[in-house]
């Protein structure tokens, strides 16, 4: 897995180009401010953060852990869905909200435990294992919902605490955003400043070294995938409380953008490794672009093309750079 051979080399040339992501971000920001006056307004920027950024950021952070460990998790959407389903079912059954939240996190972590067994227990490569989980999970949801029918929460039967999760405000900041910020900060601390985070990163760079260092590699890998699913479950909680409905297999909508943001973020690191600030910036870039294109009045279908081209260019610059650097 860890073939992205990090080689120490001169930072001067790369230092500049390394910030392709930051440059892209600034450029996009400037362009949209120029063409769409509404873009820069506080209300719009807040709506970007709440509607586009918060959820994707949570999923992308989860993905970052999997990628940092040298793997990938294609079943983050499944964890979102399972959490969402457990949450809706428990609320409908009249359980108190705190219990429903715990149930949702447990439901999501089931997916992670399943992945952990496949990846650390049996030794299947993460891509294949989580792809299998994605398919099995899709079928399981269709069985649970009578062939894939959405489960609605009636507006009247929803407790106040539930509404708070999706639409509440803490100190003037919407709850989804607060949750996203807390998770970002927590993930940053875990990945960069704890022993667990260092082992995860080391696993991604050279797994065999971790094993030879006498560390229980499989246990760390298992913990990583469970952590990924629990973080994704939080996204499931928030999305459900925002839209008050569970739609089977809807979580997969986040998958490709989360992968994109994570890998866009790797261009920020001198060694091209996954990192939380990079991921967050990647998510921010994707959200800003989505919102800016919408405001710019560009044909809806062209928006997807433009987004794809932008991701493509950032990746191309980032990777071409890294390639040039490793050759130097």
């Amino acid at each position, binding site marked *: 897995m860890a073939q992205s051979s990090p080689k120490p080399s001169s930072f001067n040339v790369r230092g500049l180009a390394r910030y392709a992501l930051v440059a892209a971000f600034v450029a996009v920001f400037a362009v949209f401010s120029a063409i769409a006056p509404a873009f820069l307004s506080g209300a719009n920027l807040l709506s970007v953060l709440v509607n586009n950024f918060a959820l994707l950021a949570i999923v992308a952070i989860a993905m970052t852990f999997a990628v940092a460990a040298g793997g990938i998790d294609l079943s983050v959407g499944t964890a979102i869905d399972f959490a969402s389903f457990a949450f809706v079912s428990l609320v409908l059954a009249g359980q108190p909200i705190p219990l429903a939240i715990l149930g949702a996190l447990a439901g999501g972590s089931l997916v992670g435990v399943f992945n952990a067994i496949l990846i650390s227990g049996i030794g*299947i490569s993460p891509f*294949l294992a989580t792809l299998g989980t994605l398919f099995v999970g*899709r*079928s*399981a949801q269709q069985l649970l919902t009578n062939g894939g029918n959405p489960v609605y929460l009636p507006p009247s039967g929803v407790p106040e605490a539930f509404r708070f999760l999706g639409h509440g405000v803490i100190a003037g900041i919407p709850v989804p955003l607060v949750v996203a910020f807390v998770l970002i900060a927590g993930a940053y601390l875990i990945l960069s400043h704890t022993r667990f985070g260092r082992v995860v990163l080391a696993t991604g760079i050279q797994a065999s070294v971790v094993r030879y260092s006498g560390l229980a590699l499989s246990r760390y890998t298992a913990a990583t995938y469970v952590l990924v699913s629990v973080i994704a479950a939080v996204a499931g909680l928030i999305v459900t409380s925002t839209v008050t409905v569970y739609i089977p297999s809807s979580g997969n909508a986040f998958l490709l953008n989360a992968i994109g943001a994570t890998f866009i973020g790797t261009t920020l690191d001198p060694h091209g490794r996954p990192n939380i600030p990079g991921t967050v910036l990647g998510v921010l870039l994707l959200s800003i672009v989505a919102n800016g294109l919408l405001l710019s009045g560009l044909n809806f279908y062209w928006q997807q093309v433009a987004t794809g081209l932008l991701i*493509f260019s950032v*990746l191309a610059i980032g*990777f071409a750079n890294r*390639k040039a650097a490793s050759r130097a």
Partner: protein
Amino acid sequence: MSVDAAYLSPSLPASAGKDTDVTSVPARALGRKLAVFALRQGSLAVFIGVLVYFSIAAPFFFTVGNIGNVLGQSAIAGVLAIGLTIVIIAGGSNVVTGGIDLSLAANMGLSAAVYASLVQAGQGDAVAIIGALGTGLLIGAVNAAAITLAGIVPLLATLAVMNVVAGLELVLTQNTVVPASTEFLSTLSASGPFGIPVLAYLLLVFTALVAAVVQYTPVGLRLYAVGEFPEAARAAGLRVKLFVSGAFLASGLCGGLSGILSVSYLSGSTTGAGDMLLPVVVTALLGTVFSRRLVPTIGGTLLATLFVSFLINGFQLLNISSTLVSGVQGLLILLVVSATTLLKRKGNQ
């Protein structure tokens, strides 16, 4: 996975320890051979067993008409899966840094849209065919350039291309169905000799042609060499990047071809081509289990495609909910991969 194993075993001093127990090595090798044999024959046995079960449970299942229909329905996914298999062979089985082409399904969608739009614009079939295949080839070329020139890992390069291509399809069709009917298209979707659909014959001929090139020519052998151990292939004087680019071009062409097939099968281009992606990935990966050395092969991919199609068909005939199909696909891939992983692990110890 096999690439990792290939890299690790020679380079790690610790793995030298595996030879200390010299006496039992032949015995283990034999045991492994037996296990691989069992797995390979086992998967074929399961395939045949499933066919036999469906034939008994649903009398209509084992009729020429039904089998022909299943073959015909498999054509689109089969051509896509074969394209992906070529990429997996050339890129190695490490799915993130090696062979994967996520843009294939979107490629099919755009090629189909180009074909249907050209027909709508009053062009003939020849122009439309060139348009569709050209679209596929162009997408393959972009992938190849992104991977070999810019050095983006295939998973991401093809992911980004997939987004762009899917967007272009929306732009072209405005997210609507573009109907197309020409004589050529109706010939393709009609029944051929023995009441078997022309698409079924096409799939078989196409598979045979690609298999001939990939499994039985020097080019094919080199393709495997490039995928399984790029460093060694490079040291042996093979132009690795050329082979990788070629594989992505070939898979792009497969995307264009399946686009044409889907226009004929559905009498036009429809939206939602992206839904084909993951099933096709699973099918191509599943194909390894039908090969002697548990590597991706064209024939194995065809068998995997047919296996999945027969399952879906059998479920329909038996009135089993088709929602189970994706679960069965998922379980299959997990079972297959677990078995191969455990075997490889045993073999390495």
